[in-house]
Structures are given as C-alpha cells and as structure tokens.
C-alpha cells in the first residue's frame, strides 16, 4: 500500500509540481510583503495603524491563495484520469475507494509545502520586524488557518472535479441560476436578496466558508 | 471683647441659617453639645465651623484664660464617622489629642497661664466629601476650691 501511495504521490507531483512550487513561493512571499516597513523603530500610534492596515489588506491574499491551490491541485489530481476516461484507474489492483483516498492523500501531502511556507515566511517576517508595543504576532494561528482553508478548498474541489463533466455542469448551472434569479429580482425591483442570504449562511458566523472570510491578521493586538 | 463677639457672630450664626443641610446639621449639634456641657457666664464660647475632605486638617488659634477649665468639643455631619481633635501650644507641640470618640471628640483642659493655644481638627473618615465640622471652645464653671 505504501508503494502504491508513493507511486500515486509521484505521478501527482509530476502533474502538479509547477502549482506546488509557485504556490509555495507565493505563500512564503505574502507574509514578508505584508510586514514591509515594520522594522522601523520610530513607529508612533499612527504608524501602528498604518502597519495594521497594511497587514489587513495583504491578509486578503491568504484565502485567495488557499482557494487557488485547492482548486488547481484538485483539477490536476483528476485531469489525467478524466483524459484516459478512468480506464487506467479502474484496471489497478486496488479498491476504487482506496484509490480515491490515495489521490486525495497525495494532494494533501503536496499541499503541506505551501502551508509550511506560510509558517516559515510569517515567522521570519515577524522575527526580523520591530513590532510596536502592544502588538503581537500570530504566525502559528495564521498557518493553521491557512492549512484549514487549503484542506477545505482542496476537498470540495476534489469532489467536484472527481465527478463527470455533467456533475460540474450541474453545479455551475445551479450557481448561474442563483445569480440569474438575483439579477432578475434586482431588475424587477423585487425585495429578494439571495446573495445576502447566501453570505449570511455561508460566510458569516460559523458558516461553512467562514474559514475563508474575516481578517487574516499576521500582526494584531 | 464686644468686637470679638460681633466677629464671631458674623462668622457663625448667619451662615448657619443660610447654609446647606449639612452645615445646619453641625451647627445644631454643636449648639446642643454646648448646652449640655454648660458654659461659664462672662466668658465667650469660641466656635468654628467648616468643611474638610477625608484626611484633610484645619486648625486655628484661640486664647485660653488661666485657671479656667475648658471643654473643647468637635462635631461633624452624618457622613463623617471619625474626627480627630488636638490641642497644641502656640509653638505647635501637642498638649492633648482625642481620636477615639469617632464623631464627637472632646478635650478638657485648664490653662495654667493665659496664652494662645492652637486647635487642630483632622477629618479621618468622611464617606461623602466634603464633611462639615464644627468646633466649640467652651469655658466651664470654675470648680470652687
């Protein structure tokens, strides 16, 4: 089983190495960029505000990167099987559910690199910066959150991408239908806020996508 | 002597009539206490009143006649729970101190010679600042020897 996993991991690495390497570099770069200028010792209250503003703005890139990594890795995980109409996968001497888990596991292992890069990058950035008094760094919390976001994005897109083109079409069609309904409702001046409801249910509070939203503050009070 | 009485009247009684509830309260109390201890005819009762925050002190000087027993009494308003009263020589050294009688400290003293003495009051505990206080230096009847 280990050998099988190594084989799947290797093939998946070959398909997605560009994504992994670029994702890792980006994940390493974002914390460094977000703390630019934080090493000045002469920071007053206003500079503190500026620093936190910058950290907050750069923080928007973490969920985007997590989503992009999850999506691309999921697509890469199934692209070859889709191309070969799953014949190779179905001929392997292994239960199919095990095969799916091996594919998923391989993706998770490869995604560990960008997660580690976020942790190392943020730790380096924080260690080399002079933080104004009263502020503290959250490198570990940031890396953990990034890991959660990457895992969730990868799992969801892995499931979508594992399905047939018809499945993907249905999902996209549903999303398009919701958008259409909202647009028509706006035009017809009907008091219907599908987006608002979706935002409340999915993003705010303990929504399933709340792990992506909110403020990704590497530095905060 | 008449002039002193006039000044004291100006300083004390009219303000008692127009002042706040707490000021009237201490004026009435000191009046009652003076009546209770009884005064010697002919000699004036020196009275002072004012207000102090917790841990603040006020002092004044007065002349005590020789061989006359005096009762020096201090009262304060309902919000004051501890008042300290001290008798001092004109040079400032303590002669007697009373701090255990809570809101009604009293000192008894008979001067050997007529001299100026100092009297100091310390507001040791006032739950609603400032607390009003009043002091009376009451000459008592001489005990016939």
């Amino acid at each position, binding site marked *: 089983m280990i050998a099988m996993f190594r084989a799947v991991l290797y093939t998946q690495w070959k398909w997605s190495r560009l994504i992994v390497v670029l994702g890792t570099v980006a994940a390493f770069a974002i914390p460094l960029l977000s703390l630019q200028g934080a090493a000045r010792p002469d920071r007053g209250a206003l500079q503190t505000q500026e620093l936190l503003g910058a950290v907050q703005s750069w923080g928007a890139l973490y969920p985007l990167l997590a989503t992009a990594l999850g999506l691309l890795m999921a697509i890469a995980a199934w692209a070859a099987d889709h191309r070969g109409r799953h014949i190779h996968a179905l001929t392997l001497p292994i239960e199919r559910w095990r095969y799916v888990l091996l594919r998923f596991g391989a993706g998770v292992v490869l995604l560990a690199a960008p997660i580690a890069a976020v942790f190392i990058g943020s730790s380096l950035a924080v260690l080399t*910066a002079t933080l104004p008094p009263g502020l503290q760094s959250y490198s570990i919390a940031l890396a953990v959150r990034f890991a959660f976001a990457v895992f969730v994005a990868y799992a969801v897109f892995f499931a979508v991408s594992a399905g047939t083109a018809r499945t993907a079409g249905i999902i996209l069609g549903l999303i398009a239908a919701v958008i259409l309904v909202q647009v028509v409702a706006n035009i017809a001046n009907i008091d219907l806020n599908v987006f608002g409801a979706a935002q409340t249910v999915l993003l705010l509070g303990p929504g399933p996508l709340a792990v992506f939203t909110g403020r990704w503050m590497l530095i905060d009070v | 002597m008449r002039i002193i009485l006039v000044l004291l009247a100006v300083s004390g009684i009219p303000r008692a009539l127009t002042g706040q509830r707490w000021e009237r309260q201490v004026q009435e109390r000191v009046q009652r206490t003076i009546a209770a201890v009884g005064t010697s005819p002919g000699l004036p009762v020196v009275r002072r009143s004012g207000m102090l925050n917790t841990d603040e002190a006020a002092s004044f000087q007065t002349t005590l006649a020789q061989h006359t027993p005096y009762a020096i009494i201090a009262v304060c308003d309902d919000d004051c729970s501890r008042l300290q009263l001290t008798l001092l020589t004109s040079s400032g050294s303590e002669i007697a101190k009373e701090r255990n009688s809570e809101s009604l400290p009293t000192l008894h003293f008979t001067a050997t010679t007529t001299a100026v003495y100092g009297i100091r009051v310390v507001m040791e505990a006032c739950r*609603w600042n400032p607390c009003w206080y009043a002091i009376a230096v009451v000459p008592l009847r001489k005990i016939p020897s």
Partner: protein
Amino acid sequence: MASLKRWVLVGLTACSVLALAYLPPRGARSSGKSIFAVQSLQATPARRHAQVLADEWRNADAGVRLLEDRQRLKRDSLPASPTIVFRGPTLPPNVVRNVETVMDSVWRGLGLAETKVRVTLVIELQRPNGSAKSPTPLQDRVAYLAPDSAHRTTCMAYLPAGPYWTSFILGKLEARYEGFAVARFAQWLQASVGPCAFYAAYGTPGRPVQSWLAARNWDVGLYLGSNGIAGGRFSSLTLLGDPRFRWFWDGVYSFPPATVACLAGRPSGCRAAVLAGTTEEWTIPIPNVVLVERRWWRAQHLLPGERYLGDIARTVGRDRFLSFWTSALPVDTALAAALKRPVGEWTADWQRGFVAPIRLGPAPPLGGVAIALAIAVFAIGIVTATASRRQIR
C-alpha cells in the same frame, strides 16, 4: 528523483531571493515617501506657534471666566437644583425659566436632589469671533471647574451653546415647537453636566481616584445618566460603525492596544485600559479646570468610557461606590473591592454588554471550521462512494 530535487531547489532559491529582497536590513527600511507628487500648504512655524498660544489662552481664559462666575454666584437659587448662568445677550425671564425647568427634570432624572457639592451651569450663548486683539474664545469645548481648596462646594460647568442651541434657547429655531427638540435639549444638558454630576452625586473623590481621573481627563466619568450620552443606546461605540467595513477597523486601531484588547473581551486588556493613569501620581492643579477634548470619543481608553463610572455606580450601589470614590487605597484595589470582582473581568463583561467581542488575529470561528471540515470529509466520502460505482461505457 533528480527532477524532484531540481524543483525543490528552484523553490528554495526563489524563497531565499525573496527573503533577501524583503527582510531587514535590506527590505524593511521604509523611505517614508509620500504617495502624492505634490505637497499641500502648511502654516509657517511662527503661525503654528501663535495658534498654540491662542489655544493656551482659550483654556486659561475659560478657567478665569469660570472663577469669576463662581465669585459672582448668588446663593438664592433652590438648594436642590443647579444654578444656571447665561453669558451673552440678556434673556427674557420666561426663557430662563424654561431652561431651569428642563434642568430640574434632568437633575431629578439623574437621581439628584440637594447635594453637598452644588453645580452651576454657565451656558455661553454664541460669542463673536476673535479680533486682532484676542483670539476667538473657547466655543467648542465643554470646561469644568472642579471644587478645590478655594471653594469646596461648587462645581462649575461651562457649556458653549453653539449656533444650534443658542437659536433654540433664544427661540429662533423652527424646531422649538417640536417636543423631541426639548428632549434633545434635556439630553444635551444631561450630557454636559459631565464630571460635575459625579461631584454632586458622590462628592469630592479621594486623592487616588482624583489623580486617576485627572490623569485621563475624566474620560470614564463624562456621563452619569443611564441612557446613551445622546439618548437611546447611543454611545461613543456607535460612532465606530459596522465591523463589516474597513473604516470600523481603522477606527478600532486608532485606540491604544489595551482598549482594542478590551473590545476583544480580554480581561487583561480591560484591566490595563481601566487602570491607565494610575501609575504616576498626578498633581491636582488649583484651579482644577477640566477641559473635555473636542472629539472626546477619540481620546478614550475604554469604549464607551463616558458611562463607565456611571454604570459601576448603578451596579454596585451608592454605598459601595462611595467607598471606592473616597478610598485612600490604590484605584485597582478600591475598585476591585467595590465591584467584588477583579477589575478586568468585570470590565470585560461590561464591555460585552455593548458590543460582541471583536475577533483579533487570524483565528477563524470554531463552529465554521468544524462545519467546513465536516463538509470536506462528507465530500470525500461521496467521491469514494461514487467512485466504487464507476463503469466504463
């Protein structure tokens, strides 16, 4: 394997280059450049110095006027309500009576009757602008003259009425016919009594509390009322706006870290925010003039600090609050004794009563993470299940 090493090497090299480029000492030196190509006009240093002096004079002048008013005070007003003095044009008696009636109801609303420290409101109707001979007098800041050794039983509040309330008092405002305009006037008066309301209700504070309040310019004792300072639930917190917007966070981060930590519901932060100003022994000046900041809601250590002491007094009751107020113990000890709880914990709870704790750092809501992980696992489960039924057609 060789290709794997090559790719790993590429990744590591890229990261090292980034680190060299952006980490100190090279990266983090900010040039402090302005993003604007042109700069705006600035006053000359001499002009700025003159403006600073003008500001100092305004404050001193306000103090002197309060002292002079205190000397001129007539003691014929009712003992159970504040005296009101108007500066500016002479008002008809009925107008003065109306204002006094509103003030009486405000006074009763604050639960006050005859008090040891009497309050005098000096309402300044709008004054002319400054001339070459003197700067514009203080017109946009409320000032208080606290009782001091010269006069122990009077607290004076100086209220510049400004154009709006001046027209209202003079009966020139269309809104004078409207009931709620009167209500707003009452609120304005109630909010403007400020520290004088505390002096009236609880007398002169003990030295530690007095020094603490002086050090923080009475930011926790600006309002004794139980409603918001502008009625309803309005408080300085309301001005922060909605957490969904960026400016909410700009506003939050403009406060000291301890204040922000308290907004996040951290007792340690709340404690630090409450005890700000207790470290150094503040000498109380004579005369003790308290000048409230123009934008007082931006200079607070607690949000909504203006009602903090008022809320404590209502919570612990008069006796316990008086024991704190006049205590000779350090503020944290006296306050904890009055609250019968650690200051930080009580304040954090009090803070939660106004706003849900803000989320600091990157930590996501736990419920959200749990649901997201459940969905992810569920999705994988579905895939494994459907994969078992895959067939080639």
